[in-house]
């Protein structure tokens, strides 16, 4: 097995206002497309900046094995440069640089090389930024909100481009978003950050298979959420109740009581369940205990 492409140990980053990221330990397996999700201000950008060296951590460490390429939020480019000059910029500031591949990508997207970057559409700018990152033939591609400010067609194109690269070159990707539905089809690893703390990190299929949405009469809730929120093989992540019904996201096997109706959660439900209860965690170490 390849070693993790990104590894954070006890990572803490603080700004003048306070901690943006605390005690974050996480390992991303190589060759995966990992989704980093969480509400605004959860520390997604901070974690990415620390990973690519834009921020020095106050505590702990974060290591990338191999080379990381980063596309920041808003896809910064030099607006007065032409597209061709942006490629020259990339070639001059990198040792590994695949110019033919970059030219082929841009030609395939019909982006003219002599056009000034500032005159391209938002979607085209995103593609140029992505092209520069990919031309570096990185081991890890870090994308901060790559789909923000893009129309649905451009979102689809960018996502498809990323997937094609993963399939072709086997690179690892870490991308952040606060819209979970964007990630459902493309990502196979989930990282949830909330309030500067790591809440979930795991294979999406395993996570979905290991969780259940239980619906049942309200009076049954107590039988599950007894001492410490868990009973036997079930651990409650989050619960919402109405007068007569209770709906819970739980981890573990389905309960025996036939009055419970159980089904697998969607990625959206899973993420929302964890974000609503910041005290719940699903991390590799703890996952073993839950089973």
């Amino acid at each position: 097995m390849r070693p993790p492409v990104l590894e954070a140990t006890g990572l803490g980053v603080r700004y003048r206002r306070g901690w943006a990221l605390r005690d974050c330990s996480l390992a991303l397996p190589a060759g995966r497309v990992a989704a980093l999700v969480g509400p605004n201000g959860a520390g997604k950008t901070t974690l990415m900046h620390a990973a690519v060296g834009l921020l020095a951590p106050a505590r702990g460490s974060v290591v990338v094995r191999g080379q990381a390429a980063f596309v920041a939020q808003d896809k910064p480019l030099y607006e007065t440069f032409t597209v061709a000059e942006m490629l020259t910029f990339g070639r001059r500031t990198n040792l590994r640089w695949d110019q033919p591949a970059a030219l082929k990508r841009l030609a395939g997207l019909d982006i003219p090389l002599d056009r000034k970057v500032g005159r391209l559409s938002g979607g085209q700018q995103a593609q140029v930024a992505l092209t520069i990152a990919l031309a570096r033939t990185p081991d890890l591609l870090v994308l901060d909100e790559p789909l923000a400010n893009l129309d649905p067609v451009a979102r689809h194109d960018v996502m498809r481009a990323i997937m094609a690269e993963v399939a072709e070159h086997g690179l690892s990707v870490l991308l952040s978003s606060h819209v979970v539905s964007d990630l459902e089809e493309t990502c196979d690893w989930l990282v949830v950050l909330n309030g500067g703390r790591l809440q979930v990190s795991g294979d999406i299929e395993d996570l979905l298979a290991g969780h259940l949405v239980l619906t049942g009469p309200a009076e049954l809730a107590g039988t599950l959420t007894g001492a410490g929120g868990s009973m036997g093989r079930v651990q409650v992540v989050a619960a919402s109740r109405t007068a007569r019904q209770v709906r819970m996201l739980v981890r573990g096997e389905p309960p025996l009581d036939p009055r419970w109706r159980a089904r697998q959660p969607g990625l959206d439900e899973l993420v929302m369940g964890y974000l609503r209860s910041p005290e719940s965690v699903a991390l590799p170490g703890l996952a073993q205990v839950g089973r």
Partner: protein
Amino acid sequence: MIWVTWRQHRAQILLTAAFLAALGLLLLGSAIEATLYVSGHAAPGCPGSAPACAPLEVALGERYDAIYSIFGWMPLVLPALIGAFWGAPLLGREYERGTHRLAWTQAVPVWRWLAVKLAVLGGVVVAGGLLLSLMVSLWRPVFRAGIESSFGNVGVFNMVGVAPAAWWLYAFALGTLAGTVLRRTMPAMALVVAGVAVTMFTLFALSEHYATPERVVLSDTTVLADPDARLVGATWVDPSGREIDSPGAEVCPRRVDAGRSNRNTEAWEKCLFGKGYGYAVSYHPPTMFWRFQWTEAGILLLASGVMGGLAVRRTLRRTA
């Protein structure tokens, strides 16, 4: 990285080069015209101190003043422009547009990115300042043979020798630091303009301490023979050699001059000199030119080094 530096800053580099070229042509044209005028109109033995040379000197002076009025503002304005357009955007614009997150996540380490930019742009700034100084130094003697003012006149002093290069570099470093601290271009530009102006007046006020002034006691005039000296202070000395604020009215009566006449003051001074009083003047002679040039350049270079170091440290500390 040199290509990146050139591509990002070529507008400033080309504009500055074009300005220097235009100024060079202007100075060259004016010098040629003046030389032709001298060869056509000069009486034998002129230019020189003979009375016959006065009309020529006046004509040359008019030509000199016409050009000087164009570049008289340059000692203050050029460093301010260099700081605002070379220094302030260097890091300020990167932060403002977020492009530092692009530049500093490529394989080139941040320290190298910064070192190349500071070295290339700083070098070009120094070269530009020296070129300006060279052009002005070649141009002035055409008009001012025998009338030196490059020491006494601070405006001229800051346009010759190593002063322009030191001022330009200082402004560049100040702009770079301001852009790093404020992280926005426009406020950094404003700070540079204010900073250069304050520094210029501060250094001018400090400059009389660059060396121990010479002191001379004049016994028949209150005006120094050398017009290019920098006056530090002057006071009356009584016959016993004591310095006094002002001789009392009981020594020599003084009447107020009317209009622009100096008659009464001159009569009063003559009376004082007649009674054995002297006028003590402390001043820096023009021979101090290079000492002052290098002292000022040293201060500015040291300040540039400190500010550049602070900008580098702030940038490398990585607080995105």
